[in-house]
């Protein structure tokens, strides 16, 4: 749980954290500057809608002035875990779920009603209707499959909602750009599900690097998933009879993706490994680990400029290079870690490695672990960020400060995922210009930065 209380308003002092990325490029007003002026100009700062506790039977919960009203879209197994995490926060009230699959929306309703001891969780089948008819909802939890993360987030933000989107949060570079643009344009708070950016042992590893205790960092290593390949499938599973639209709206499930015959296997997680629905073994864990590395080295507004093709099915061993010379190497398997979603930072004076399941990071010298608690405390004091990913989101919804896994962090780390994938698909080295956001001298690679979306779900 968070060490911090919810802030009652904007942060009163201190410099912005070095990892925080404000909105837009060099010529843009930062979000903080804009909101300060907008609130002076006349109360334009969005505040959460309020539902009286008495109406929700929540005598023990936070007062209406402190409560965030939450809805959810596409909540399955992973999403239920995140939802449970969110409902544990006293100032959050989940009120409605939308899903094209009946079994899933009913399961979520049951979970939520059981939690609150009532029958009040509303259910919806149609996302545009859901977004248009619930102005009372402040924020949306989006845990659909990967194919929908970006477009659903964009739709929710256009409807005035703040967003928590599971990762990988976009399927293409173009989608990531649109998420950033939409969040900036409407002043929305957005968090992608890179929860390790809020976990103490990963924070500590990043702080070791940031404070120079590893010396000059030359190499970071990012874990990629041990299943699936970089080159994904296009085949169709055998078509099965379509269920009723109420049971499962296949058209809505597919959304912007190319049509294919219905097969229930896709809806049960069998979409992984398909080009239309997945970002490969690289994106599966790279969505996490690349973001960790980007944030650790301060590359929150850029991506590597070089991608070295490796002749294997997975991208294992690919060396990418940032403009400042730091290498990021993709690694699969257990060579560098004994847990999942690992990162490792190597400098002239030491190294640190951390993954899921570690109680503490592993380091080149035990002395590097000294002051663990103080380092984490100093981080939270400096950044005003909770060491809980969902708490960070809700704090930022109230304060309107950028989250730790904000749109720019998401977009730039996912751009690295996409560039690495494209490198593997084209089977050649690539150079990327992160300012222009295009591949250098490579029209084929540039064609793969976007995909035509199936109507009517066009960004």
């Amino acid at each position, binding site marked *: 749980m968070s060490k911090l209380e919810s802030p009652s308003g904007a942060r009163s002092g201190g410099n912005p954290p070095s990892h925080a990325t404000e909105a837009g490029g060099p*010529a*843009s*007003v930062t979000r903080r*500057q*804009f909101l300060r*002026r*907008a609130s002076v*100009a006349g109360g*334009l*700062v*969005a505040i959460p809608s309020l539902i009286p506790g008495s109406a929700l039977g929540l005598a023990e919960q936070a007062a209406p002035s402190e409560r965030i009203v939450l809805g959810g879209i596409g909540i399955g197994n992973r999403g239920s875990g995140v939802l449970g995490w969110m409902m544990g926060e006293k100032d959050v009230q989940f009120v409605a779920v939308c899903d094209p699959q009946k079994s899933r929306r009913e399961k979520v309703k049951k979970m939520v009603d059981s939690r609150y001891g009532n029958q009040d969780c509303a259910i919806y089948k149609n996302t545009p209707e859901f977004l248009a008819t619930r*102005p009372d909802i402040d924020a949306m939890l989006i845990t659909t499959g990967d194919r929908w993360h970006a477009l659903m987030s964009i739709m929710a933000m*256009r409807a*005035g909602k703040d967003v928590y989107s599971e990762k990988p949060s976009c399927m293409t570079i173009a989608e990531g750009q649109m998420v950033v643009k939409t969040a*900036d*344009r*409407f*002043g*929305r708070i957005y968090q992608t599900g890179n929860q390790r950016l809020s976990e103490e042992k990963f924070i500590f590893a990043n702080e070791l690097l940031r404070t120079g205790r590893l010396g000059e960092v030359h190499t970071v290593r990012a874990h990629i998933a041990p299943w699936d390949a970089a*080159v*994904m*499938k*296009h085949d*169709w599973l055998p078509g099965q009879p379509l269920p009723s639209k109420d049971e499962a709206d296949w058209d809505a499930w597919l959304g912007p993706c*190319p*049509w294919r015959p219905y097969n229930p296997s896709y809806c049960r997680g069998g979409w992984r490994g398909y*080009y239309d629905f997945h970002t490969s073994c690289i994106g599966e864990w790279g969505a996490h680990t690349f973001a960790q590395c980007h944030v650790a080295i301060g590359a929150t507004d850029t991506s590597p400029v070089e991608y070295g093709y490796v002749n294997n099915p997975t991208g294992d061993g690919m060396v990418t290079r940032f403009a400042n010379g730091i290498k990021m190497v993709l690694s699969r398997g257990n060579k560098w870690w004994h847990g999942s979603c690992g990162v490792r930072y190597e400098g002239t004076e030491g190294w640190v490695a951390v993954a899921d399941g570690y109680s503490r990071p592993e380091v080149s010298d035990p002395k590097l672990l000294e002051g663990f608690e103080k380092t984490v405390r100093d981080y939270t004091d400096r950044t005003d960020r909770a060491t809980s990913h969902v708490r960070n989101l809700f704090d930022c919804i109230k304060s309107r400060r950028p989250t730790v896994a904000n749109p720019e962090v998401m977009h730039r780390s996912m751009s690295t995922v996409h560039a690495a994938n494209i490198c593997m*698909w*084209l*089977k*050649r080295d690539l150079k990327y210009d992160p300012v222009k956001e295009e591949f250098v001298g490579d*029209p*084929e690679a540039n*064609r*793969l930065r*976007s*995909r*035509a*979306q*199936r*109507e*009517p779900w*066009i960004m």
Partner: protein
Amino acid sequence: MTNPMTILAATSAVQADAAATKETENKLIAVFKSDAPRKEKVDACRQLGVIGTKNAVPALAALLGDEKLSHMARYGLEPIPDASVDEALRVALGKLKGRPLVGVVGSLGVRRDPAAAALLAKMLENTEADVAPTAARSLGKIGTPEAAKVLSGALVKAPARLRVAVAEGCLDCAEQRLAEGKREEAVALWQAVAKAGLPKHFRMAAARGMLLAREKPHKR
């Protein structure tokens, strides 16, 4: 049919061999004229999206009215960097209905075809589902002075169901006008959005835009 990724890699491997690529392209185009199953035609569209040239445009454009292949035809057409794609999409506007029409309207916005602005303006009055909102957003992406005029006029007249999409188009258009140094045009759009009686986050977006306009150096 070979995995499209294999075709992609093979084509890349012989990138310098234009004749081989052309031969592959011709083979893919020939699939559309055959009685190949739908999946094979879908895969051909996908591959042409990566290697297709203006030579593939007529064959792909001919599929725009086919409800089962229209999206994949656009999947193949959208990335091809040739003006014939825009022309084909504009021609299709006058012939299509329903979801294929929505798709073509959307693709013209993705390609930012300035010559489509007048045609898309007419689509704002189309009553089929999703056509008018998609047209509004496409006009926003096109972002020309003509598009700006259409959108700001539509914001005043649009029925409630369309006003949000038109406002989104105005916001997009305004940012592009500003990027081209046309600050007054951009500010006019943002002011129109601010006064349109829309939800608070639209007024915030308009205010943000006007702040951007104040801080950006005015290009002469």
